[in-house]
């Protein structure tokens, strides 16, 4: 008996919709809270279940049993719709992410993606930006000034960071010549090169705008507890709040997934072409994928516990004055490198060396300069602090 591909698609959709919220609730939130706590020399939640593993369940129970409040004079329909708008697109976007190469189950070959759309990247960009409407509408419909400010900030953030994100992906498109995410991974396999190396600048821009797009620190302006008292979700409680929460974390997963797929070779192990490292292929590719996503989520958490928050206008300035010109210039450079050796990847390799070398050189120069400046400052201080 063979099962139709459609059946497998249903199975995958159900699996995704069921597991991703569970992963968000149980793994990522817990990991975030505990890792942040560790960085802040404290322990974090460790009471519910062994080492706090059931914290997600407790949070879920709390949120579900909480009273669901709708403020007086709120736009009821929109207020109800906004959390849904925040979650559905985020979950939909997961459809095009390739978690691994096709696997054989029985006699059927099942690809580990729901759909290999040939406009994959465009689809992703389009669908994730719908999620922001949830935040904007939620902020507006709550009839609360702080929420409104949060929603407006979110709108501005969306406008300024969609552009650099798209532009940074364009330079990758030049390398892959395909929008399909599966195709992008395969292309990285065939060129023996993760695109993060030639696309270092593109990756940087993509990740910065990704952090901004998901409203995470240091770009968490729409929420900004200390300024807007949670901004757009001030008035939300219970399940609706849980939906916003879920939407935000799913968006974070998607940004990480796309970064892994486009820049870090998707399910490929590190250095797929090096003979000595062939044993890495023994690890199932899906695990490689999840490990890489995990690294990105960790980076998100790390940023959150380290950086202060940008101001609204500075955020816009960063987007428009820095990231967009940088992305445009990067496209030019990449295009030039590709055109220099048409049909071959030599240009990309060169580009990788140039970008990598430049950055490392700059970093160490700056480090040196910092050390010298510190020594000078200490020498110039009239009363150096001894001991």
């Amino acid at each position, binding site marked *: 008996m063979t099962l139709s591909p459609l059946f497998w698609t249903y199975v995958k959709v159900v699996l995704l919709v069921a597991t991703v919220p569970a992963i968000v609730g149980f793994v990522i939130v817990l990991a975030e809270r505990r890792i942040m706590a560790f960085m*802040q020399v404290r322990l974090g939640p460790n009471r519910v279940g062994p080492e706090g593993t059931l914290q997600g369940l407790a949070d879920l129970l709390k949120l579900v049993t909480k009273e669901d409040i709708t403020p007086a004079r709120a736009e009821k329909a929109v207020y109800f719709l906004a959390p849904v708008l925040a979650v559905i697109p985020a979950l939909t976007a997961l459809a095009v992410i390739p978690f691994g190469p096709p696997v054989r189950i029985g006699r059927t070959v099942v690809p580990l993606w729901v759909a290999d759309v040939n406009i994959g990247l465009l689809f992703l960009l389009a669908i994730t930006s719908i999620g922001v409407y949830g935040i904007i509408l939620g902020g507006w419909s709550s009839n609360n000034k702080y929420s409104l400010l949060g929603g407006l900030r979110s709108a501005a953030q969306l406008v300024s960071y969609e552009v650099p994100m798209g532009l940074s992906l364009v330079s990758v498109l030049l390398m892959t010549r395909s929008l399909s995410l599966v195709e992008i991974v395969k292309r990285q396999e065939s060129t023996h090169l993760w695109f993060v190396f030639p696309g270092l600048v593109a990756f940087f821009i993509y990740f910065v705008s990704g952090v901004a797009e998901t409203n995470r620190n240091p770009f968490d302006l729409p929420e900004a507890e*200390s300024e807007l008292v949670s901004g757009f979700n001030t008035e939300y409680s219970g399940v609706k709040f849980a939906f916003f929460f879920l939407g935000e974390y799913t968006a974070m997963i998607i940004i990480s997934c796309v970064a892994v797929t486009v820049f870090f070779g998707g399910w490929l192990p590190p250095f797929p072409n090096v003979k000595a490292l062939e044993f890495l292929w023994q690890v199932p590719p899906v695990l490689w994928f999840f490990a890489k996503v995990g690294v990105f989520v960790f980076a998100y958490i790390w940023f959150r516990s*380290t950086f*202060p*928050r*940008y*101001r609204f206008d500075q955020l816009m300035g960063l987007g428009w004055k820095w990231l967009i010109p940088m992305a445009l210039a990067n496209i030019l450079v990449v295009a030039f490198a590709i055109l220099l050796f048409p049909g071959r990847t030599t240009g990309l390799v060169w580009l990788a060396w140039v970008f990598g070398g430049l950055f490392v050189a700059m970093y160490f120069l700056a480090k040196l300069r910092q050390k010298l400046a510190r020594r000078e400052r200490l020498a110039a201080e*009239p009363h150096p602090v001894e001991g």
Partner: protein
Amino acid sequence: MSDEKISQAEKDEAAYFAERAKAGAAAAQAAAAPEPGTLFDVQEMELNFGPQHPSTHGVLRLVLKVDGEKILEAKPDMGYLHRGTEKLFETETYPMGIPHTDRLDYVAAATNNHAFCLAVEKLLGVEIPRRAQLIRVILDELQRLSSHLVWLGTSGIDLGAVTPFWYAFREREQILDFFEEYCGARLTLNCMRIGGLPFDLTPGWTERVSEFISDFPARVDDYEQLLTDNRIWKKRTIGVGVISAEECVEWGLTGPIIRGSGVEWDLRRAQPYECYDELDFVVPTRQNGDTYDRYIVRVQEMRQSARIVRQCLERLEAGEIRGKVPRVIKPPAEEIYASVESPKGELGFYCVSNGSNRPYRMHVRPPSFINLQALPRLAKGHLVSDLVALIGTIDIVLGEVDR
């Protein structure tokens, strides 16, 4: 109540009811008027910032007029924590007033105690033994450290940097342990008495403090590494809330604010009390008078405080801890103003005595109250995000503002 008081109260009352009648009429008129425009029809929006807001550092309420996020006008509204401390002083003997001073600036209780005691001691003309002076200075400076650490943590959180808060509170916890060991309380210390100190140091205290102090500059380096050079921190603070030295003087600003604007004025240096005149320390100043400079000044002050504590620990020698104070404190019928450099600025006590054992009038000159006065001036034209930075940089404690 005396007769004249009643007549005055009646007059007040009549005026009040007339005003209320007028307000009621206005309200009725407004109700009859067509529905006011919705949020989008008006350019200006009134935003209630506080009293329950995470970054107003207590129960400060600011009524903001904002255009988008730009602040057109900020009106502070306080008094939510008013407890009538000055009235309480009048009803109690001098030593009984000291615990009340703990509750003024509750993150820096030792300096409050110190200022109170200093005022009464000046009135009495009491000399304080040298050991007591040194211990007082140590307590003051440890308190300054802990207060600045609270400031660093909370103003970091206001700007979204969560982690320095925990590091700062880790160190503060150690300082509070020292206080607990010395006087038995962590926050509301009540650790000074008129004429000296209630206790001598416990054995081993000085060693533990000096160990902490020698470790402290490295900890400050950590905070600085997180914040000082960080581009986001710089962007959020440089050029925010700039105030010139002349304006600082005009507004009566004190403490790190006036030093951040380039006025090297520190009561520990300008009018040394206790044994500050023989200690070697720098009064850090910066020239630009913005939030970043005030941040730098405070961080430098932490380093200097550590130095002062170390010097005092070196100078400690056995001796009396309480000067010759009469059992019943009855100062001459005079008036006195005495002030110390609290972590927030000049904290003064103006004491009027009528020769009895209670102060006739005890007025507090709270640095936070006077500094807060400049907030509308600082906030004007900035964004709402900057407002939290400004509240953080003024470093108010509402217990002191409202008294």
